Each structure stands twice: as structure tokens, then as C-alpha cells.
């Protein structure tokens, strides 16, 4: 394999890894701009991935799965929004609870339907676009394009429309926003729902556009990497595209490297990389993400009222 083939492969893998991150990040940017922090993204991804696997398995229609998954994401997001807005719940605790629940519900359902603990049977997938470049093929997944489109559209909504102005007001100063006639509770409810819907698409993507079946470990922290990307991109959807690509690249690189290591000749003291050392590759994306966030974190500016419950006098 020539180096160019490697680059193309890496590019394909990166774009793929980028997609769920970008979707969840964009959704969470919308949510956080309105003042709510939803750390239950991981849980939403697990449940919506499972939903997609179930729907595709029983109806054979991956598009339907996408639709239903985003609806499930919307519903869970709105539950979160309701609890944190109208009932003043602690947003971090609710998010943690959702994450705890999700795995439990997923396992129970898996067992009920297929008698298995680990994963679901394979399901039909969406077709990818294959673009030949030289000798290699660049794989572009349709939902990746959708993700980028949604990010651009979300940026436009937030920065260029009146709706966006009202949304951002809720996140900067909910008391002033309310005094100027914005219904802060309702806005936050809606935006948390929309964020959940985006994450629902991300979860669905994992099953119907990537792996092809559901497994319990499939999300492996992606929801949290998405959260990191939100701060990393300074709550800006266009920058989030770059950030998601970067974090996707970390994951792709780790995967690619772990395979490469099987193929090349290694000196004796490095042979562990083929066996137990594989775990190190898995750790790499998280460490790289952390380092990246630490390095740039001083310079970001988050919405002022983020995470604090807004209580009307």
C-alpha cells in the first residue's frame, strides 16, 4: 500500500469517526447556547443506536430507523429539558442518571429480544458513496454530509436569525431575556430536545451507516468527546466541524496504527503492541482529546448562565 492509500484510508476513517461527534456536538451547542448542559449524550446515543438496530431489524428500512431515532432523541432531550427548566433539577445529576439508565435499559431490551447480552444481529445499512482517488477509494458516508450541512445550518440559525438571538439570550442572561419577553423555560425545553434529536441521528448513524449492528460498547465515550468538542470549538458550530474532524482523526489514527502494527516488522521489545498493547491505542484518542482541551481551554468563552438553573422570581 502506498502512502497515498494510507492517507485516503485515514481520511475516510476520520470522516466517519467525525460524523457522530459532529452531530452530537452541534446539537449540544444549540442546547448549551440556551443555557442547559446535557451530559446525558452518551446515554441518548446508546438508546437511539439500539432503537435503530431494532427498527431496521424488524422493518428492513434504515431511513425509518433514522427518523424514529431522532424522535427518541428528541423525547429524551425534552425530558431532560423539562426536568432542568421547569423543575429546577441539577443538570449534571440528571444527565448522569440518564447515562446510568441507558445501559441498563439497553441490556434488558437486548436480552428480551435476542437473548444476547453483547449485541444485536446485523442489520441493513445505508449505502456509502465510493469515490475512487488514484488506486484507493475514499468512502464518504451520506450522513457525514448531512452532519456538515446541519452544522452550517445551525450556525446560521444561531448567529444570523432573530430566533438565534432569543436563544442566545437565554444562555447569557435568562433574567434579562425573560424581562424582554423571551419564554426562557420553553426555549430551553425545545433546544434541549433538538440537541437530543441531533444526538439521536448520531446514535442511529453508528448502526445504520457504520458498523451495521448494535453492541453495548459501541459508544465508548463518544458522547463525552462531543462535550469536549463543544467547549473546544468555543460554542461555534463551524469550528465544531474542525474539532470533530480532529477528534475523529485521533480515533482513526489509533485504529489505523493498531492495524499497521500487525503488518510491519517490529523490533522485539515492541511486539507487545500487537497484543496487550492494543489497549494503548484505544487510550490514545482520549488522551489526545484531553491534552488538546487543556491546551486551548484558557481562551474560550462559555455562555454565562450555562448549567445554572433559572428560577423565576
Amino acid at each position, binding site marked *: 500500500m502506498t502512502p497515498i492509500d494510507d492517507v485516503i484510508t485515514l481520511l475516510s476513517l476520520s470522516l466517519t469517526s467525525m460524523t457522530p461527534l459532529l452531530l452530537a456536538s452541534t446539537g449540544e451547542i444549540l442546547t448549551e447556547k440556551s443555557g442547559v448542559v446535557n451530559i446525558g449524550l452518551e446515554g441518548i446515543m446508546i438508546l437511539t443506536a439500539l432503537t435503530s438496530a431494532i427498527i431496521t431489524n424488524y422493518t428492513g428500512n434504515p431511513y425509518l430507523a433514522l427518523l424514529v431515532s431522532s424522535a427518541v432523541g428528541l423525547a429524551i432531550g425534552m425530558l431532560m429539558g423539562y426536568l432542568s427548566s421547569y423543575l429546577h433539577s441539577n443538570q449534571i445529576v440528571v444527565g448522569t442518571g440518564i447515562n446510568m439508565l441507558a445501559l441498563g435499559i439497553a441490556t434488558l431490551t437486548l436480552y428480551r429480544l435476542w437473548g444476547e447480552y453483547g449485541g444485536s444481529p446485523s442489520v441493513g445499512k445505508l449505502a456509502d458513496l465510493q469515490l475512487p482517488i488514484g488506486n484507493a477509494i475514499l468512502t464518504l458516508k451520506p450522513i457525514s454530509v448531512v452532519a456538515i450541512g446541519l452544522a452550517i445550518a445551525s450556525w446560521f440559525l444561531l448567529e444570523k436569525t432573530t430566533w438565534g438571538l432569543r436563544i*442566545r439570550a437565554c444562555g447569557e442572561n435568562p433574567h434579562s431575556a425573560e424581562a*424582554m419577553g423571551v419564554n426562557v423555560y420553553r426555549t430551553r425545553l425545545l433546544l434541549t430536545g433538538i440537541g437530543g434529536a441531533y444526538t439521536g441521528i448520531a446514535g442511529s448513524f453508528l448502526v445504520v451507516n457504520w458498523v451495521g449492528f448494535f453492541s453495548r460498547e459501541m459508544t465508548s465515550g463518544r458522547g463525552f468527546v462531543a462535550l469536549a468538542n463543544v467547549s473546544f470549538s468555543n460554542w461555534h458550530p463551524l469550528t465544531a466541524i474542525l474539532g470533530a474532524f480532529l477528534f475523529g482523526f485521533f480515533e482513526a489514527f489509533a485504529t489505523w496504527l493498531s492495524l499497521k502494527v500487525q503488518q510491519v516488522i517490529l523490533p522485539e521489545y515492541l511486539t507487545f503492541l500487537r497484543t496487550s498493547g492494543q489497549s494503548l491505542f484505544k487510550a490514545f484518542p482520549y488522551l489526545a482529546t484531553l491534552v488538546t482541551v487543556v491546551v486551548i481551554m484558557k481562551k474560550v468563552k462559555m455562555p454565562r448562565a450555562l448549567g445554572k438553573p433559572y428560577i423565576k422570581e
Partner: protein
Amino acid sequence: MVKEPLVRLENISKIYPDGVKALDNVSLEVYPGEILGLLGENGAGKTTLMRILYGEIKPSSGKIYIRNREVVFHGPWDALKHGIRMIYQHFSLIDEFTVIENMHLFMSTINRKVTIDETRRKAEELLKTLGFQIPLDEPVGRLPIGVQQKVEIVKSLVTGAEVLILDEPTSVLNPIEIEELFRLIRTLREKHVSIIFISHKLREIKELTNRVVVLRKGRIAGEAETANIDESTLAKMMIGEELHMLNQAGKTSVNNRSKEILVLENVQVKGDKEQSTLKGISLKIHCGEVVGVVGIQGNGQKELAEAIIGLRKPIKGRILFEDEDITGLSVEERLKKGISFIPESRKIGLVGEMDVSANVLLTNHVFLTNRFGIIMTRELENLSVKVMKDYEVLAASPRVLVKHLSGGNQQKIMTGRELVKNPKLLIAMEPTQGLDVKSAQQIRQLLLDHRSKGGAVLLISSDLEELLLLSDRLVVMFNGRITAEGTPNEFTVEKIGLCMGGSC
């Protein structure tokens, strides 16, 4: 010519669930094109009444009529639709947004279909009519307070206002900005906007308004054409009783031989704003002396207090306490040396989720901890009980959570826990805020007692009468500097006003 009232409030009462009667059968009329003054002390009910008019609060009984038609407001949005706008002391602006974004945000509530360009056009037209400029694309947070207030007013007007309610608008302005505001208000009246001007400052009411309504303890205490009434009559309506003279026996004058307890030498401290940055303060406080600091909030008083107690480090200059340089000492070390601090807000000075004894411990822990770092609970209990008894804090026991106490009782804890340890120097910011007349008198007497025993007090207050009553010496602050110094009888009210405004 008898005009029709634009707004009529009829027999408005407001009783809160805990029994407090904020308003008792208040009726009020507002005519088109007039400036109506609403005068009263803290807690008289002025803001409550206006919040009812603005739809923020529902009245317990009574009716509201706009142009003789009865209306019921379910929220501010209903009042907005009728052309009523309210501007609070603490503005409802979003600091991170630009001026035009704030205006458009408000506009989009009133009329969803307007675009931001149309809002901009309307704003520019309005500014031309009113005769001044505002930088529309500047983030609001960076503008001076006076300009922010103009932004608030223009924001209300650009969406079409008929009645503009201003709640204590001059509390954050310097005298020059106050003049500009008055000019703006008069222009608005010419344009047939009715203004309701809430204030407790007699001079402003007299200067600006056509009519004045006085509220006292939730009831109407008087009503008059402003031209036909004088300030002392208004004052009597507002307060309703004679203030007893404080026991000034023993208020001997401080002679130069009295020991200096605190000396500030050319202290420069960075402030929250340019206006409040201390630009070289030199000050001496003696034992047995009350030094009163006069000035509009935000001119460096807070920074001065924080520098002395150790919350802010001076960039230049020295602070000497009992002839010792304490400039580099921490807050805890200064507490040990006998400096005490009453902060300006109960939100900062108390922990609501903890009980009374924990809050007493908060600034007394240096005296109530043994050398292993363990709290001496018996001594703490005794101290808490003493504070509650001496300062008449009404609570069942020291284990009551502070958030369940009334504001007045909370203030007594904040003040009592400092006085009880007889500090050598007490820095008191707004020590009687939120207290009823009797409690405020008590605290003032205690401050004087503390002074008689040889303690020193730096008194920072927005209550000019209190400062004049208690201080041996006055110090006027403006823009982070001391603009005047002297004994109370060396000052006239005019001179104080001018020095507060930087014009002396």
C-alpha cells in the same frame, strides 16, 4: 381642561402568603404627557405597585384600567402590549450583546415580523429626534452606566412606549449624567410619553416632576402638584415621624493626640471599573473615631473597604495598622489583628444554607479554633447565643438556617457578629440596610457605643443622613479619589453634592 387618565389603578392591595401587607387600597392615576413622581422610603411599596402595573405581580385585589377599559395582566407581555415599559435599577440588558442586538431582541417580542435592519433604522431615527448618539454596535457591557441607561430607555421607546416607569434611575448616575437624564425625560414628555419617576430623593422629585404621590407603609400618604408643595412637607409625608436624636453624649471631638489606628499611604487598587479604581488614597483613622465615606456607589468605596480587609491587594502604596505594615497580610491574619468587615450585601456576607452559629463562626473562626484546627463548639455556642441576645435576633435557636430568617434579622447577625468581638477597627458597609427604623437606630447606637469604648469605625453608607449623624469626620469619594475631607459641620449639602460629582 380635564384630561382622561391614561392609566388608572383602583384600590390595589397586595398581601403576600406570609401575611405581609405590601399595599393597602392604593389608587393612582397617570395622565398622558406628565411626569409623575412616586416618593417613599425603602419598603413603602413603590416598586411593588409599579410591578403590579407592569404585570410582573398580580394584585390581591383591585383593578387596572387603561384608557378606561379594565385590563388583567397575566405577565409583563400583556403590559408591554399596552405600551407600558419599566426600567429597573438593575437593567435588563444582556452585556455580551451589542446595543442593537438588545434592542432587536426586545423588538422581536413586541413584533415578530420586524427585521434587525428595520430595528436599526427605527433606532437611528429615534436617536436623531432625541438629540444624542449611542454606538449601536458596541457590546452593552462595555458602555458606561449612564449610556447603558440611555440604551434601556431608547430600547423601550423604539418599540412604542406610552408609559415609562423609571425605578430609582439616578442611583447609579453621576450629577452630569443626572442632568442629561432629566433633559431626556423632559423631551419625552414633550413627545407625549408619560413618565412615572420612582425615587426617595426629595430634590429630584421637586426639580423634575409635575405631580407627586407619596407612599408610606403601603398606603397613600399624600398627593400634590409639585409646584405647590415644598421638600420638608414631602419629607414629613414620607417618613411620618420625627427621628429621635441619637445619644451623642460622649461624642467628644477627636483631638490630634488620639492614636492613629489605620493609615493608608497613597494606596492604588484596581477596581471593577475604571471609575472605581483607587488612584492614590491617603487616609488616617484614629481610635474612638467614626469616619464616614460619602459617595455614589461605584466610585471606589467597595475597593477601599476590600483593600483594608485584605480582599484586594494594592498595586502601590502601603496600609499601616497600629504602626505595622499589613499590606501583604492575608484576610485571616488581618482578622486576627482585630480588623472586622461588614460587607455590603447579605448574599456575600452570609451562607443561607448554614445555621446562625455557623455564620457567627464565619468571621470568628480565628478565635474559636484550637491549635489542632478543631472548632471549639462550646465557645461557639456561647458566642452565638450572646449575639442573638444582644442584637435581638428573632430565631428559635442558633440552629435555625439563616435563609429562613427575615432580611432584618440577617443584617443583625452580620453586624452583631462583628461588634461582639470589639474589633479595633470596624469597616461597616451599609450596616443598617433593610432594617426598620427602630432596629436601625439600635445599630447606630451600638456603633456609637463602640466608638465611645475606643473602637474605630469606617462607615460606608448611601444614607447621607446616617453619615452626617454618626461621623466625626467625613470623606467624600469620587472616581477613586478623595475629593473632600472634614467634619460634618464644615460641609453644606451642596458642597457634598458637588464633591460627590467631582466638581470641587
